[in-house]
């Protein structure tokens, strides 16, 4: 399914999502507010986006952008679902009830970015040791044990 068809399909079935749709870097993107993430995800799932390919986050300073990659084999399409959460209160609803694949993915985002997923069944660190301090993929992460690479190498 082409992007125009995808946009038309979303606008036909869910007019409330239509203004949120945009094309970024050649990919269909839905930018939602965190409170509406779950309802938007539910709507996309009912459209046929039955696979959650990826969950990640981007540290943009003031906000973290949560990025969900949704894929559909019936539509032969894929879409990005994005939501900005404020840095001082990084909380967002979990999507584990819609896609079980979100379980470990959200744990990884929690592990590396410190974003709390409300409603997650088992939110704890997944890759780093349980007693780890800090969230390494945040831009302001400091660790005295890290050796800076010299410039001449």
């Amino acid at each position, binding site marked *: 399914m082409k992007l125009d068809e995808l946009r038309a399909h979303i606008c036909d079935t869910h007019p409330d999502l239509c203004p949120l749709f945009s094309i970024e870097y050649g990919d269909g993107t839905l930018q939602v507010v965190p409170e509406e993430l779950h309802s938007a995800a539910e709507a996309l799932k009912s459209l046929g986006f039955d696979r959650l390919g990826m969950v990640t986050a981007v540290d943009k300073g003031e906000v973290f952008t949560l990025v969900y990659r949704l894929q559909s084999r019936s539509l032969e399409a894929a879409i990005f679902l994005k939501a900005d959460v404020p840095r001082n209160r990084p909380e967002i609803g979990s999507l584990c009830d819609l896609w079980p694949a979100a379980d470990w993915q959200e744990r990884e985002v929690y592990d590396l970015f410190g974003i709390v997923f409300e409603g997650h069944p088992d939110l704890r660190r997944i*890759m*780093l*040791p349980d007693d780890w301090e800090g969230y*390494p993929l945040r831009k302001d*992460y400091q*660790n005295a*044990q*890290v*050796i*800076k*690479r*010299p410039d001449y*190498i």
Partner: protein
Amino acid sequence: MALVDRLGEALGRNQGGIILTSVDALVGWSRGQSLWAMPMGTACCAMELIAASFNKFDFDRFGTFPRPDPRHTDVMVVAGTITKKMAPAVERLYEQMPDPKWVVAMGNCAVSGGIFYYDTYSVVRGVDEFLPVDVYIAGCPPRPESLQDGILRLRELVHTESLAPGVRHERKLVLPFEPDRAASPASYDDDVKPGPGEGA
């Protein structure tokens, strides 16, 4: 093993006569002839470790045989990046190995952290931070021949080890049917010849 331990104590008290030292050297020699390997493979070096034990490189001809069970093995081959989360598990596996035991650090990551030395928060900079490493093998990853050479160097080390703690023989036991590797070092070109149709 109690007999071996008592022999070691006796050798530690005095240097032993001609019979005891010969037995000591024989035990060291025989230990070196079958160094079963614990394949502690965590990253891409494990591919070379696996290749080393298959038929083209044939680790079995040196008496080295991979056993994925620490209780059956003599030498732990740490092949790959060890993260800070993995390190306690590696240490625990090492503790489960029966004495005497040795450690080979295979590849740059196991030697020093390799490419993860700089700008990395999660990687241990070399397994010698928590394990007593006997042989270091550089490479990213090393060829299977390098690993086999490392095991042969380790074998020479094991040959000189005495049952008495902290004692090493100055000369290793050379049996008549065994060529002295130090006297006639093998060329690397002889290790693996290209098979038919594989070209140079």
